């Protein structure tokens, strides 16, 4: 067994050696720019990118032309959310502004027309003055819906749009971490332009009912984006069967390299249009300019192909390892709480709270094992995990949470070692915990007047 043991595969995955092999020529002799159309170096690079595009498309049952390569899923989420909002949306402030300009023109202000920024395209001020901007642009919405437990790349993109005047609904989740479909349905209005719900959660691994959400959005005529970073390569994805319009992917979460990802953008029924976030040479059909990261893309493609081929057997194996880990811990420790739904979750993810033991102290105790924690002490903000909070997990248990992320290269031997180590250390830390002593003496911790600090 090699140390340290890596059980943090939800943060990033090691690069599969087969992926490294595939990438190497593109870091050496095949260094061409995929946009160089006039010589062999460029052609070789372009061909490799096209092949990778097919490999990635296949993983999610899309067509190659629907794959836009990006620098990673943070960029993909930004592009999907801001790109849709700017292409299809119009804020109340925009409408008010247009009404004001139309009125000014009617009242004889000569430069009225020149006040209108180009982003509005050609605007008929006389029509707006007559009918009102709200009527003229009735088909443009200003509302987006997402979940409180989304990744920051989604939440912060939404917050940026709120600053611009868009309205965003952040849906609560149920105590098991899953969306309430009735609440989603009730939140969709005529002004809703995009629903963005993650496929699988990065902290607690729960799998959202993407097919049901897709069907609902399709029926209501609202675009549907899903951040599938954690799910892709681990569970089957078919963008057509699931009615997904936009889907974010990341290379390094599926045994590929860092710094490369993709956004799936539906081309038919409906054809989704986006306003670019990064402008430049017009690469990726104008949706994402910038010289393509050819070695990264080649590796990402190879990683997607391996995931697709080995998904079924790997998921079963990793699932068994996860169960072995959880069963082993439960057999020896009391007051152990699973965070997130027990059934609907990613194969390798186990997020548990060891009551009365603080997460960072726990990680320090098992320093030969790489895991992560929802404890405040591990974050710069000193706030415990917002995902666990959204589930209604108390702050004390959020501070006590540990996320184990098993993956392709995890072994049974490692799991058995970790079980033994964690059990020993939790017992030691509980012996050191005044809260555990009080709980064992029958004192209700919540009955004490604690001074917040």
């Amino acid at each position, binding site marked *: 067994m090699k140390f340290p043991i890596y059980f943090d595969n939800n943060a990033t995955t090691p690069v599969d050696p087969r992926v490294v092999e595939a990438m190497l020529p593109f870091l050496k002799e095949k260094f061409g720019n995929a946009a160089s159309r006039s010589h062999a170096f460029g052609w070789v690079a372009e061909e490799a990118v096209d092949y990778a595009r097919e490999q990635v498309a296949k993983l999610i049952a899309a067509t190659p032309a629907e794959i836009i390569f990006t620098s990673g899923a943070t960029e993909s989420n930004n592009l999907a959310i801001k790109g849709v909002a700017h292409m299809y949306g119009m804020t109340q402030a925009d409408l008010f502004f247009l009404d004001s300009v139309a009125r000014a023109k009617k009242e004889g202000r000569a430069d009225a027309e020149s006040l209108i920024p180009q982003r509005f395209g050609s605007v008929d001020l006389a029509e707006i003055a007559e009918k009102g901007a709200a009527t003229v642009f009735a088909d443009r919405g200003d509302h987006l819906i997402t979940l409180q437990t989304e990744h920051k790349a989604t939440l912060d993109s939404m917050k940026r749009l709120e600053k611009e005047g868009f309205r965003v609904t952040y849906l609560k989740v149920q105590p098991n971490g899953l969306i309430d479909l009735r609440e989603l349905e009730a939140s969709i209005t005529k002004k809703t332009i995009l629903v963005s719900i993650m496929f699988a959660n990065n902290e607690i691994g729960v799998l959202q009912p993407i097919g049901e959400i897709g069907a609902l959005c399709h029926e209501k005529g609202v675009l549907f984006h899903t951040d599938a970073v954690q799910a892709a390569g681990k569970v089957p994805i078919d963008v057509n069967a699931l009615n997904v319009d936009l889907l974010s992917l990341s290379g390094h979460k599926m045994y590929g390299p860092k710094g490369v990802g993709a956004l799936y953008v539906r081309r038919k029924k409906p054809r989704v249009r986006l306003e670019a976030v990064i402008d430049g040479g017009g690469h990726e059909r104008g949706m994402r300019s910038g010289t393509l990261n050819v070695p990264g893309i080649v590796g990402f493609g190879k990683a997607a192909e391996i995931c697709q081929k080995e998904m079924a057997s790997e998921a079963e194996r990793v699932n068994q390892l996860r169960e072995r880990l959880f069963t082993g811990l439960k057999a020896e420790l009391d007051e152990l709480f699973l965070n997130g739904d027990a059934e609907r979750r990613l194969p390798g993810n186990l997020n548990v709270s060891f009551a009365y033991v*603080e997460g960072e*102290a726990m990680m*320090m105790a098992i320093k030969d094992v790489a895991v992560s924690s929802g404890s405040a*002490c591990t974050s710069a903000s000193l706030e415990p995990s917002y995902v666990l909070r959204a589930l209604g997990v108390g702050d*004390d248990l959020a501070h006590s949470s540990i996320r184990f992320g098993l993956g392709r290269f995890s072994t049974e031997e490692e799991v058995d070692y970790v079980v033994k180590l964690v059990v020993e250390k939790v017992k030691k830390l509980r012996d*050191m915990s005044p809260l555990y*002593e009080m709980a064992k003496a029958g004192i209700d*911790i919540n009955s004490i007047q*604690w*001074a917040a600090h």
Partner: protein
Amino acid sequence: MAYNEKIIEHYENPRNVGTLDKDDPNVGTGLVGAPACGDVMRLQIRVSDEGIIEDAKFKTFGCGSAIASSSLVTEWVKGQSVDFAEGLKNQQIVEELSLPPVKVHCSVLAEDAIKAAVADWKKKKADRAGAK
């Protein structure tokens, strides 16, 4: 984040973990912090009639720095007078353990805990004197 060696040393070999009888008239108990904030410290001292701290024990729910801070304080106060314990400043803990800014609150908590323990012992003593 890499941990400072002294923190690791105290964390791995904590001094004076345990419990004193809180109902003992010579024992002072300080319980500070809150579970929701991620750290709770309980520091206890047993004081002789001469005002010397004969024994000190702690239990802490918190990160490595919180555990190390409380361990260090028990080590410092043992054999010292209550006046010495009362005069301890969190900055001394920060310096001894080289706590980074984000962990300074652990030292503040340890200072609060020892002060609360001394205050508890003093209150018991005053109550006894009043009862006589």
